[in-house]
C-alpha cells in the first residue's frame, strides 16, 4: 500500500466541522477528500479510490442514509462510517441496515474517530480471509469448518445458535451488528424481533467466553443498537 494512513472521503455539509476534520486528519496522515453533500460524495468516489468514507447522516439533498445505500450498491467493500447525533438510535440502526460499517456519535473525540477510521481502513486493506479459515481474536478461536470454539486452547461447548451468533460477531469484529441482523441470522428472516431471546443468548455466550460476564471484554453492547465483538 502507500505511506499514508489511508485515503478518506469526508462527506459533511457543515463547513466548519469539515474544516476542522480535514485539518486534523490531514496532519494525522490521512489523504483527505471532501464533499459537501451526498451527490458530490458519489461523484468524488468515482474519481479517487478511497479507502473509507466518513458520512454525515443529516445532510440536505439525498441525505446520509440514501448516500450510504447508493455507495454500498456500487462499492460493496468500501468502509462507511456514519457521523450521527446522540439519541438517534433509530437513525443509527437504519444506517447500519443501509450498509454502514460503523457510526461515530457527534460530538466526538478525535482520538475515538481516528481509531475507528484506522480500524476500518485496516480491515479494508487486509487480504480477504477465506470463509473456512479459523478466526482468532484474543484468547478466542473459532473454527467455522469444524464448528469448534476454543478459549485459551480449551474447547468451549456452544449450542448451534450460540455458535452462529458468535461466528457472525467474530467475522465482523469491531463492527456493530444490529439486533435485527443477529435475530435474522439466527432464526431466519421474518421470525420477529425477539430481543429478550437474543439477550439471553448473548448472556449465555458471555458466561462461556468472558472472564467476568458482568464486565465483558469480547462481546460488547452497543446500547439500543446491537452488539459488537472487540476490535482484533
Amino acid at each position, binding site marked *: 500500500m502507500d505511506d499514508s494512513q489511508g485515503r478518506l472521503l469526508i462527506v459533511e455539509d*457543515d463547513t*466548519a*466541522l469539515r474544516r*476542522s*476534520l480535514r*485539518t*486534523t*486528519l490531514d*496532519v*494525522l496522515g490521512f489523504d483527505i477528500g471532501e464533499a459537501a453533500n451526498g451527490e458530490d460524495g458519489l461523484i468524488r468516489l468515482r474519481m479517487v479510490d478511497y479507502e473509507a468514507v466518513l458520512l454525515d447522516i443529516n445532510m440536505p439533498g439525498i441525505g446520509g442514509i440514501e448516500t450510504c445505500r447508493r455507495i454500498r450498491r456500487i462499492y460493496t467493500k468500501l468502509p462507511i462510517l456514519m457521523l450521527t*447525533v*446522540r*439519541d438517534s*438510535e433509530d437513525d443509527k440502526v437504519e444506517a447500519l441496515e443501509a450498509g454502514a460499517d460503523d457510526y461515530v456519535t*457527534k*460530538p*466526538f*473525540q*478525535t*482520538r475515538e*474517530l*481516528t481509531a475507528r477510521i484506522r480500524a476500518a481502513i485496516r480491515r479494508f486493506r487486509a487480504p480477504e480471509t477465506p470463509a473456512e479459515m479459523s478466526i482468532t481474536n484474543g484468547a478466542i478461536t473459532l473454527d467455522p469448518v469444524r464448528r469448534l470454539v476454543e478459549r485459551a486452547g480449551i474447547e468451549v461447548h456452544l449450542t448451534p445458535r450460540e455458535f452462529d451468533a458468535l461466528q457472525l460477531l467474530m467475522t465482523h469484529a469491531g463492527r456493530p451488528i444490529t439486533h435485527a441482523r443477529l435475530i435474522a441470522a439466527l432464526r431466519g428472516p421474518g421470525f420477529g424481533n425477539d*430481543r*429478550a431471546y437474543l*439477550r439471553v443468548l448473548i*448472556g449465555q455466550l458471555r458466561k462461556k467466553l468472558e472472564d467476568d460476564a*458482568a*464486565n465483558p471484554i469480547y462481546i460488547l453492547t452497543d*446500547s*439500543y443498537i446491537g452488539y459488537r465483538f472487540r476490535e482484533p
Partner: protein
Amino acid sequence: MKCTHVTKHLLQTIAIVPVVPLLTAVIYLSHGKALTAGLIELVLVMLIAFRWGFLEAAVASVLAVACLDYFYMPPIFSLYERDPQDWISSGIFVTVALTAGHFADRIKRKALQTESERTSLERLYLTSRDILMLDRREEVGAQLTRLIADTFHVDAVAIWDAREMRMDKAGKDAVPDDEVRATYFHELSVNDLVSCKFKRVLRLGIRPVGAIYIAGPSHESHLDPRSVDAIASLSAIALERAHSFAAESNAEAAKRSEQLRSTVLDGLAHAFKTPLATIQSASSGLLEISRLEYPARELASLIDEQATRLAKLTNQVLQTAELDQRQLEVDHERIRLDQLFRFFRAEAAPTLMDHPLRIVDETSDNYVWADTRLLEMALLQLLDNASKYASPRSPITLRVTTTGTEVVFNVQNEGSFIAPEERLRIFQRFYRSPGSQHKAPGTGIGLSVAKRIAEAHTGRVWVESDSEASTTFFLALPRIRLEA
C-alpha cells in the same frame, strides 16, 4: 321606619273619626232604615280593614256601633240603650265587624307578603343572572356591590374579600369598614331590622371567604333576612368564581411562559449543537495531532473539557424537549435487573465523580417491566443529580425494592437537605431550589425528565430528605407480573 309607620296609622284613625258619624247622620237624615245603616257601616268597616288594616277597622267598628246606637236605638240621640236586645245586637255588630275586618286585613297582608316575596325572588333571580354576566376582567367585588345596590335599591353595600384583603363599596351611604371586617373575623350574622342593616359572613361550604354589609332604606324595605342570606350565598359564589377564573388564567399564563421558555431554550440548543461539535472536534484534534507544551496543552484541554460540558447540557435540553413534545411511547420490556445494574456500573459509575456507587437489590422478582431506554434515562438523571449534590466523596446508593404493587428504585446520597416546601417543586421543569445555583451546575431539567418518564409508565417520583442524614429520590413503577 317604625315611627313613620305609627304616624301613618294614627292619621288614618283620625281620618275615620269624623267619617263614620257623618255617614250615619246622612243615612238617618235621608230616612234610611236601621238595617241599611248597619249594613253600610259593616261594608265600610271591611273596606277600611282591607285598605288600611285591623286597627283602623276596629276603631271604625266601635265608632259605627256608637253612631247606630245614637241615631237608631231608642232613646234616640243618646248613647244610652234601654232594651237589652239592642245591647245584644250592638255586641253582634261589633263581633261581626271585627271578625270581617280581621279576615279582610289578613287577606290583604297575605297578598302583600306574596307580592313582596315575588319581588324579592325576582330580584334574587336578576342578581344571580347578572352575577353570571359579570365582566371577569374587571374587579368582581366592585361590580358585585354596584349590582346589589342597584337591584335592591339599598343605601349602602360593602363586600370584604378576605383572600384579596379588598373592600368594595357601593351606594350613597358611608360604610363602616371596621364593622364589615369584624363581621368576617367574628363570623357574624346580624339582622338589624330597626335600622335595616344586615351583615353576613360569606361562606363557601363552611369556609369563610369574606363578609357582606347591606344597609337598606328604612321607608321602603325590600330586604328581609332570608333575601340577605341568598344575596350572601350568591356573592360568595361570585367571588369564588372570580378567584378560580383568575387562578385558571394564572395557570394558563404560567404554562404559556414555560412553553415559551422551552421553545427559546430548545431553539438555542439546536443552534448550539453544530458549532459545539465543531469546537470539540477541533479541540480534541488539536490535542491529538500535536505535541503541545504546557500552557498550550492546558488551554486546549480546557477548551475541550468545557465544550464537552456544554455539549452535554445542550444534549440534555434537547432530550427533554423531545420528551415534552411527543406523547411518550412506552415500549414495555422485561428488563433483568442484573443487566440493568451492569449498565449502571458501566455508564453511570464513571460519571459520578468521586462518589462510589453501591447497588442494592432487595427485590424478589429480579426483573422489571419498563421501557429500557426511558428507565435508564430516568435513573441516570437521578444518579447524576445525586452526584451533584452529595457530600464530597460520599457513596451513592441505588436500591431496588418491591412492594405489593410497585417496583421502587431509590437513589440515596448523603447531605443535600431538601426543605419540605421544595419537594414537589424540584420536579418542575427549570425549577432550581434557591441556593442550588451556586452549589452545582444544572439546568433544572433532569428531575423533570425523571418525573415525566415515571408518569409515562403510570409510576411516580418523590423525594425524602432529612436534614441530619441523607436525601433519597424514589422512582416507583407498577409491578407487572405476567403469569405463564
